[in-house]
């Protein structure tokens, strides 16, 4: 085992010049000895070459193991996804390691102008992706059929993805009237695209517009009522929603209802909206067997939020990952292998 002093020396050397093979092997040995789900710390502060980072990633991926796949709600045929999704804005170096672990849903793939090589090399049917359509975003006209339709078609023309598994209404509707029990222009655009084979399922990222006073006067006064209307409309197949540790009970309840109705529930903003509370709650992190790992604790907490019938509310989540540390910490939150080592009893959807 290397001493802290030895690792500090290697960190210092790495910032001056690439580590020699021998020095890098010392770092890999330390990382390996730390154990599954804990390897990335050895690389923190090291300046590594691209090939060294790739080797480090292999070790980390090996520690995390293959991720399970769970049903993406009950409205998407046989679609099974890993409990964490990639996002098109991830660090590109992390895409291949995630794919290696089985991650098979790419959020916001529709925004790519060009599909990264790691994804392009795969058969299109081997992964899922969504297009977040912006006509329901603040300040846009949700009744502008052409804008929504053209956003999807022009993105497919650019990136060659052939079709989107999920057409996702970005930000969602502003009030019950504009949603109109599902009989709205956004859904009609989806229906046309579905007939043309360009989109398969209908989803929404229903956000609460909490900061809209600063600009456009769009604010949802009764968020839970709108989610309820979306559930009862029967047209929404998936919902990607802001959710984290400490969210209001009424939000949790309505998301549980959506999940029970078979809608695929995807959590987002888990870290941004929960890190302060979780960081301050050492007992909770202990309970989640993720002491000192806020991201891992938050993902475990959210992915184990239960419906009244005891089943998980969320089938998957989105996390923005920019480096190997975050990758290991957050994906470790849904890794059965790491859960076993941490002593955390996991019950994913």
């Amino acid at each position, binding site marked *: 085992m290397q001493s802290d002093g030895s690792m500090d020396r290697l960190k210092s050397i790495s910032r001056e010049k690439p580590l020699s093979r021998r020095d890098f092997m010392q770092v890999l040995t330390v990382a390996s000895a730390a154990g599954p789900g804990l390897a990335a710390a050895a690389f923190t502060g090291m300046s590594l070459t691209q090939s060294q980072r790739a080797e480090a990633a292999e070790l980390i991926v090996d520690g995390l193991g293959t991720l399970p796949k769970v049903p993406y709600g009950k409205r998407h045929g046989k679609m099974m996804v890993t409990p964490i999704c990639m996002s098109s804005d991830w660090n590109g170096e992390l895409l291949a390691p995630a794919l290696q672990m089985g991650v098979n849903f790419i959020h916001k793939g529709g925004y*790519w102008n060009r599909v990264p090589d790691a994804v392009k090399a795969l058969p299109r049917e081997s992964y899922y992706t969504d297009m977040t359509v912006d006509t329901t975003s603040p300040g846009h006209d949700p009744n502008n059929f052409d804008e929504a339709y053209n956003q999807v078609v022009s993105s497919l023309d650019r990136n060659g993805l052939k079709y989107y598994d999920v057409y996702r209404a970005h930000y969602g509707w502003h009030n019950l009237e504009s949603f109109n029990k599902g009989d709205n222009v956004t859904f009609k655009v989806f229906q046309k695209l579905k007939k043309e084979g360009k989109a398969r399922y209908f989803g929404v990222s229903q956000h609460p517009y909490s900061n809209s006073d600063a600009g*456009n006067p769009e604010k949802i006064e009764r968020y839970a009522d709108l989610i309820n209307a979306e559930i009862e409309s029967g047209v929404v197949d998936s919902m990607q929603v802001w959710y984290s540790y400490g969210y209001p009970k009424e939000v949790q309840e309505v998301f549980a209802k959506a999940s029970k109705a078979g809608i695929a529930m995807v959590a987002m903003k888990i870290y941004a909206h929960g890190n302060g509370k979780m960081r301050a709650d050492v007992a909770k992190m202990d309970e989640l067997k993720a002491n000192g790992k806020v991201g891992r604790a938050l993902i475990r907490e959210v992915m184990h939020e239960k419906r009244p019938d005891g089943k998980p509310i969320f089938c998957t989540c989105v996390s923005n990952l920019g480096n190997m540390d975050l990758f290991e910490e957050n994906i470790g939150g849904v890794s059965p292998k790491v859960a076993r080592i941490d002593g955390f009893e996991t019950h994913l959807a």
Partner: protein
Amino acid sequence: MEPDELILSPPEWAFNCFPLPEPDVDVLTMEFVISTMQAQIDLVTEADTSRLGRALHVGHLLTVAQSDAGDWPAVFNARTGESIGSERSLAPLPMFERMNLMLNSSEFDHVLKRAAWGGIHPGS
């Protein structure tokens, strides 16, 4: 975890996880927010893009506050989301364009279009 050298607004604020010059200061200038985020993006490396993630979050929340004319309040209360004064700002636009370029993405095209800003689909 993520770099924590910034002071960030709490999650319950309208503009949550926005940079603050000091704890509990809730009146921000757009200039401060954007220059802080641009400095974060400057620190992005091939190995670590987590600071870009922070700027993306700020960008997502700012899209909500863009006016029909394509601009933003120059001064605002991050806690409540309210604009302060009548001065307007276009400071976020270069950041949106930069993020689109870095990610080879069209995510913020609609924001740039509304402001009649150039560089649409820069990577296509």
